[in-house]
């Protein structure tokens, strides 16, 4: 298929697309998480420990995602009572707690990280995961839960008065997102083959936030586009050598000025 280098780029792109979708889901319910890296870490560590212990890849991935989703419920519960910036900082704190936990969790290598993870991630597996995740958000837009999430995002009082269970909707949005982030983490671990806690630090969560906001948080294609740009652009900026981040950071500022709502706008509603 592709050469080894480009295949590996494509796999990491797919993982980043999954991460962007993992944040897009809670964000469509108005919950902005700056802790997606934490869910990714949980998926990565749990699945890697399982495959190292002899569990087949697919069940290990699912188990990692399920634990991440459970953590999503746990974080989502305090997030029910708060909004906006509070949720952002709360999830940011959660991400840091997860990082510090794995940094000190000796059964998973502690500070020296987890090595010898079997190379099980393949490009088709990543593509399949992306396709399923994207299908879910795409369908969600025209389904009961997805509509409810948008309604909650726009007006919590009216949504609740129109029969939407706020608790259920927000927790589902949070844990679906966490599940997808956990899946991304599992795929990442079995491609990187070495993980340590600092790979899932705040910058991981912040860059996930960038994917969504840069691409457009009101359009399902937005996060995918954002992830593609943020992942691939630095690859094409190799001629800039050591100043890639400076160039990239400046581009972000310009994008925020010229396209404050992201590159893609909300799609015109089509009710069919």
């Amino acid at each position, binding site marked *: 298929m592709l050469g080894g280098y480009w295949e590996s780029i494509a796999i990491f792109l797919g993982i980043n697309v999954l991460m962007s979708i993992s944040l897009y889901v809670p964000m469509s319910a108005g919950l902005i998480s700056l802790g997606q890296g934490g869910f990714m870490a949980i998926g990565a560590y749990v699945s890697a420990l399982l495959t190292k212990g002899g569990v087949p890849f697919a069940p290990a991935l699912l188990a990692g995602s399920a634990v991440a989703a459970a953590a999503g419920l746990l974080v989502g519960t305090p997030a029910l009572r708060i*909004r906006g*910036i509070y949720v952002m*900082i*709360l999830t940011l704190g959660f991400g840091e*707690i997860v990082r510090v936990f794995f940094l*000190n969790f000796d059964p998973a290598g502690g500070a020296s990280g987890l090595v010898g993870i079997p190379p099980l991630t393949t490009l088709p597996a990543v593509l399949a995961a992306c396709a399923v995740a994207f299908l879910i958000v795409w369908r969600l837009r025209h389904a009961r839960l997805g509509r409810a999430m948008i309604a909650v995002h726009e007006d919590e009082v009216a949504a609740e008065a129109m029969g939407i269970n706020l608790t259920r909707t927000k927790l589902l949005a949070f844990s679906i997102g966490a599940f997808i982030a956990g899946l991304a983490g599992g795929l990442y671990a079995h491609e990187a083959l070495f993980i340590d806690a600092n790979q899932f630090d705040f910058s991981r969560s912040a860059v996930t936030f*960038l994917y969504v906001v840069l691409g457009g948080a009101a359009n399902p294609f937005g996060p995918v586009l954002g992830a593609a740009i943020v992942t691939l652009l630095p690859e094409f900026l190799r001629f800039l050598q*050591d100043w*890639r981040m400076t160039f990239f*950071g400046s581009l972000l500022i310009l994008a925020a000025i010229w396209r404050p709502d992201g590159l893609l706008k909300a799609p015109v509603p089509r009710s069919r």
Partner: protein
Amino acid sequence: MLLQQLVNGLMLGSTYALVAIGYSLIFGVLRLLHLAHGEVFMVGAFAGLELVVWWHAGPIAALVGGLVGSALIGMLLEFVAFRPIRRRGNSHLAPIVSTIGAGLVIQEVMTKIFGSEQTAFPVHFSQTEYHLAGLTLDATQLFILAISFVAMLALHLFVTRTRYGIAMRATSENLRIAAVLGVNIDQVVLLTFALASGLGGLAGVLVGLNFNAISPYMGVEMGIKGMAVMLIGGLGSIYGAMAGGLILGIAEVLSVAYLSSSLRDGFAFGLMILILLLRPRGLFATGVAVER
């Protein structure tokens, strides 16, 4: 022993407080989560270092350097990265993207200039230790405590006694009403960035003095903790940020002393989440309605 720990905690906490006050000032006026504030703090540390290295300046001059250096960077960011977005609409996510972009730029530029390794911070106080009622404090510690409390007192006087400080508070109550009442919003915002960033720079130099080393990555952790402190104190409340910083500093020092040093950072955020559960609006809620 406990008293000694408390004083150490106050010292650590006062630097947290100075950083968190910056977050709170900016959040109060603009409702903006300034994700590059940690980097602004780091720039202050290096600005102070430069003065010391090139002009053999003393600690006071280093502080002034850190304050001015960070304030300039903060004002520059307002001009380049935030004001153009405000001019173009009221998106609430775009400015945060802009702060992330600004943080990336600052961090890489500083890494290119100073290298990515830790740099020593060569200011040496006399090694004299002062003994006071069972406490042992060296000159550095006394200096840090004194400077940060003077800075907080000065800020308090500024926002309560001066015209500009009062305009700033009015703006953070309600930007639109303040504008109608004739407050020059652009001026107030610029002043807020200068003040918030300057205090961050001050904290940068103090941290450099305390640990004798600085690095271009020091802003990340401090930035995250500063946000946690702002949340503990209550969004947009400068007194909340002061109290929250001191509480977190003391809690961290005690957790290292009595629990485990490796869990220190996790402990800080555990405390934050606990406080959020008990008091969702923070310890010193301002009553500011926070939407989105």
